């Protein structure tokens, strides 16, 4: 059960935005009643913040608090890179199917939890929607096309 509390804290750290109690419960794999208990403990420890909108409670990681700066939440962590490459692996496995599907061919797709969650011909609109609907999470965005493109950043620089 303590794992669920850690999962909730990491989930809120990655989202970095106000999140409904029910969404935290779903991400942590426990009931709403249980997660409220954990979130209250985290609130008491100064790790998260709460605000109420009507009858609903929303939570987020406390800005500048100890959790935001802790090493477990280091954004350069290998866990973040592992997530990115897992989503990329999922994209590469489904690429042939996406290319054959007129809904996705030559469009940008967003992959989250190994599934296509959204697609658009406008990359910025897609990313804007993904972050609005799913929070600030590790996601894989790629244009569906046959050949991958190699970008050039060729400028050599002299060390002074």
């Amino acid at each position, binding site marked *: 059960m303590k794992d669920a509390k850690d999962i909730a804290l990491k989930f809120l750290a990655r989202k970095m935005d106000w999140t409904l109690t029910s969404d935290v419960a779903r991400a942590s794999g426990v009931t709403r009643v249980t997660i409220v208990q954990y979130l209250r403990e985290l609130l008491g420890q100064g790790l998260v913040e709460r605000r109420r909108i009507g009858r609903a409670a929303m939570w987020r990681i406390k800005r500048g608090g100890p959790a935001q700066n802790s090493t477990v939440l280091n954004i350069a962590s290998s866990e973040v890179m592992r997530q990115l490459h897992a989503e990329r692996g999922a994209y590469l496995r489904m690429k042939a199917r996406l290319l054959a599907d007129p809904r996705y061919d030559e469009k940008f797709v967003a992959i989250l939890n190994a599934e296509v969650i959204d697609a658009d011909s406008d990359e910025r609109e897609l990313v804007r929607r993904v972050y609005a609907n799913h929070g*600030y999470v*590790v996601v*894989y965005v790629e244009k569906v096309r046959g050949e991958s493109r190699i970008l050039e*950043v*060729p*400028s050599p620089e002299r060390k002074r």
Partner: protein
Amino acid sequence: MIRYDLTEFEPPAPVADVEVSNPITHAAEKGKAKIDTGADVSVIPEAWLARLRLLPAGVLEVSSFDGRVVETPAYYVNVSVNSFRFELVKMISSQRTNALLGRDLLNSLNVTLDGKTLTIRVSDP
């Protein structure tokens, strides 16, 4: 009109003021960016990633001057170039102290380089 940077680059290089921010938290870093018309994509210093708490959202294959190709994480950021704003620009990072402005951003601006007077003009057509 902006002066080329004579201190960090040899020969002097055209630079612009940039502010790069996290699109969600709006945490921001300010610094100089070298104008690099040879670069297909813009680059931020690796040290900014942690300070802006950026999360990767893609992988780009990038070729350097010697032809070596590496796969590197990409990040969506908001960018301001001499106060011209761009939202959700896909950028990469590298171990450098200043940013690079590639053609992904430069092609949206009117940039005039005057090597004789070592000055640069940036405007939005």
